[in-house]
């Protein structure tokens, strides 16, 4: 007999924790089962070299749902920021770096025309990003509208677009179908400016600036706010793990049980209903409902099994595009590195190696054919500059997202990883001469490593490409876009669901609303 109102959540990623907390607050008896030794999923801080700690995958907080932050009392549970509004520095080799924050240029040789174009562009994109943000908290409609309730979110979206006003609506509909390359070429001259804006559009995606859909990903990236500042980038004190530590504390305070080192092998089904899970060590646990924070493919094809699904649905899940492209580089540095042309203060900002938009596109080229970029793009932070707890005195931590590193690398990562690391270090060396000599330990996580260590199929940033054909009503696939799966009693709550990836918590909250409301 399973206990009434009991729920098992598979995975203690930030979405799983958020979902569990809301469900516990709604009176459910919730147990979270996490395969890893600590909760947090891809949002954790961990030691990667003796005395050096780093945000192991996600490293910048910019999408955290303010509603989740407030409702779950994350500040009370210990979440604080080491920095809440990093500027962005586009490294430019010999030239003076360009420093920007939102719509304004803080320093750099940028024409007046570019400055005003940026102001207008940023304001417009912010407006559109807010529109996107308004959809995040809405449970997507079903493809077949059976009732008015189903149609409401679609109508709300239509209304939001209408409310932009005639001119902006037309511009929104025009931009939504464009690629970021064309948009940037249309408006700007400065190569570093275009490179930086292009990189933001393709981070975590299997897209180059010239790929369709890259305006949408760009808007998505800007759709968050930190401390009320739209599009701001923050470093939580203690690294990304601080967010999930606070979430775990909130969960425990709400009565959620969290078991780590408990890897779920399969979801148990009886008479077509999910009724519990079996752990890899053989133990079986029953529950009235099962909610999975794991990615859709892992949840539905591996843990559940296609046999419990109808054929076309299983196919759709199988066909999800979920091959990751972003690698993560962690360096334990013996001292403070010097980047060409950067002041000491600027070193602590978000540093981009994306000197122009063609550089970004060229970095993407090899990835189309299953090869890594020999001249990769990087998004670099040195969190220890703001957060001394992360590195021993006098030493520093460098954390960087590196693209492109296709999950399905030709020849395999066992062979390719070392060569890729060499390419990354060579690129870094160009911008920060001498950095190689400072390295005491280097950790490179390819999408394959991320898959193995964090249980994300394909190692994808969003648990599945965030594209117009895999968004909202289509996310992860039609038939599961409302967090409920076709199997009674089984729900999804992770980044693979609407609205998507990034440390956000919205998917977890939305899922809990659906479950508590009727599940």
């Amino acid at each position, binding site marked *: 007999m399973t206990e009434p109102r009991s729920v098992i959540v598979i995975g203690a990623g930030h979405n799983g924790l958020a979902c569990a907390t809301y469900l516990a607050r709604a009176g459910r008896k919730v147990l979270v089962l996490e395969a890893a030794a600590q909760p947090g999923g891809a949002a954790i801080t961990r030691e990667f070299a003796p005395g050096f700690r780093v945000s192991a995958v996600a490293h910048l907080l910019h999408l955290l749902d303010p509603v989740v932050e407030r409702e779950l009392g994350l500040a009370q549970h210990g979440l604080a920021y080491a920095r809440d509004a990093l500027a962005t520095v586009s490294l430019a080799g010999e030239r003076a770096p360009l420093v920007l924050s939102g719509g304004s240029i803080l320093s750099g040789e940028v024409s007046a025309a570019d400055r005003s174009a940026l102001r207008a562009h940023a304001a417009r994109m912010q407006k559109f990003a807010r529109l996107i943000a308004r959809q995040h908290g809405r449970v997507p409609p079903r493809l077949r509208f059976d009732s008015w309730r189903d149609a409401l979110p679609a109508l709300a979206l239509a209304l939001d677009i209408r409310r932009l006003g005639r001119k902006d609506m037309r511009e929104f509909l025009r931009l939504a179908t464009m690629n970021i390359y064309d948009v940037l070429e249309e408006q700007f001259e400065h190569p570093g400016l275009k490179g930086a804006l292009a990189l933001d559009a393709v981070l975590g995606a299997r897209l180059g600036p010239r790929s369709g859909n890259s305006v949408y990903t760009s808007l998505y990236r800007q759709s968050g706010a930190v401390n009320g500042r739209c599009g701001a980038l923050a470093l939580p004190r203690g690294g990304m793990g601080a967010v999930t530590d606070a979430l775990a504390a909130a969960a425990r305070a709400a009565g959620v049980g969290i078991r780590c080192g408990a890897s779920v092998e399969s979801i148990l089904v009886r008479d077509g209903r999910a009724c519990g899970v079996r752990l890899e060590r053989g133990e079986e646990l029953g529950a009235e409902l099962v909610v999975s924070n794991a990615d859709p493919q892992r949840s539905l094809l591996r843990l559940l099994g296609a046999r419990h699904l*109808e*054929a076309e649905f299983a196919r759709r899940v199988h066909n999800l595009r979920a091959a990751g492209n972003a690698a993560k580089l962690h360096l334990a540095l013996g001292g403070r590195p010097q980047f060409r042309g950067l002041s000491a203060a600027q070193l602590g900002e978000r540093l981009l190696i994306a000197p122009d938009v063609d550089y970004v596109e060229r970095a993407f080229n090899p990835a189309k054919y299953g090869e890594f970029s020999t001249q990769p793009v990087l998004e670099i932070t040195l969190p220890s500059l703001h957060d001394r707890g992360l590195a021993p005195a006098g030493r520093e931590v460098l954390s960087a997202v590196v693209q492109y590193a296709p999950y399905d690398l030709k020849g395999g990562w066992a062979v390719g990883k070392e060569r890729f690391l060499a390419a990354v270090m060579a690129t870094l060396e160009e911008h920060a001469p001498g950095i190689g000599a400072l390295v005491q330990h280097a950790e490179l996580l390819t999408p394959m490593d991320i898959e193995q260590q964090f249980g994300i199929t394909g190692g994808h940033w969003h648990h599945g490409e965030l594209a117009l054909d895999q968004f909202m009503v289509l996310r992860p696939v039609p038939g599961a876009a409302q967090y409920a799966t*076709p199997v009674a009693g089984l729900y999804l709550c992770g980044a693979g669901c609407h609205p998507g990836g990034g440390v956000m918590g919205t998917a977890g909250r939305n899922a809990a609303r659906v479950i508590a409301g009727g599940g």
Partner: protein
Amino acid sequence: MLARDHFHRAVCETPFHPRTAALNQLNLWHRWRDHTVADAYFDVGMEYNAIRNSCAVFDLSPMTKHLVTGPDALAFMNRLVTRDVAKLKPLRVGYAVWCDEGGQVIDDGTIFHLRDGVYRLCSQERQLDWLHSSALGFEVRIVEETNDIAGLAVQGPTSCAVLRSFGLAGIETLTPFGLRSYPFAGGTLEVSRTGYTGDLGYELWIAPEHALRLWDELFLAGANHGIRAIGTLALEMSRIEAGFIQAGVDFLPADRAVRVDRTRSPFELDLGRLVDFSKPNFTGRRALLEEHRRGSRYRLVRLDVAGNKPARDAYVYDQRRTNIGVVTSSMWSPAAKASIALASVMMPWGAPGEELTAEIYYQKELKWNRFMARCRVVEGPFFDPPRRRATPPADR
């Protein structure tokens, strides 16, 4: 396996072709999938009579056949079709339909449970693509074996006697939908008590290399039992009398339909008995459950049509002249002595006994005539002789 040079010919001959060609006095052929089959050999009426009065032999080698094996074969079959395959014992054959996730019929066919966990699926349409895409997550092997097995339908009241003279000892004890094998020519002859005629009958399955010998010995054995080769036209008459539906004629396979309202669910084809909701999962289940709850859009009906004109492609009207559907198959039935038809009508029309009207057009010496024929919805097949089910069949 297909011969590697198969692509030189768009249409192939069946393994029985040397015999069917020699008998085909009309030289009348058509194409069934990738094979040539006879429409008729000499006279359709006489061929029909062989089905109903003696013994008819039909070359069904082009029937699409797939072999499903592997540890998950049963689980796979059960997810594929709407009925419960677990209830189909070894050496039994079951009629089944399979649907897409919208609960719309892709095709119907027969499942042969050859031996424990080994299934052969016979169908009108090619299904390899659908079977493979349905196999995701199952440990099964699916092989198309259409050309590896030649088939003959042996149908009619004397068919059992013919097979006995042919040497199939004890064949009279084979029950409907039973399957049995006999040694033949150093190989195996599989015999199932199945057919598409609604009469007493069997289907014989053999490796192509023994096909001609089978034919020859069978016709020798049947010489005194009125054995006769029949073509598709006669078979078609018997299947309409039996009330069997045909893919592409009485329903549009869901994977071919462009327009959503052109497909049919099992309920809408009067095959609700094949849908087993006690199975926790099969493709189409959710949609069919929903349909079961809300009601179907259409209904397949059998019509007894006034007059003697076949109601070919006729529109069907209710008493108030509302167009409610269309005839999909029609004929003058010698067995029922009536003009009969299968039709698809909108719900709620078509309840048994309901009087409807079929709008029949026919041409006489280049002049078109219209005939508004009264028709009545009848229950059950137009022709259903007890011998179809009798075991042992009467000795004739």
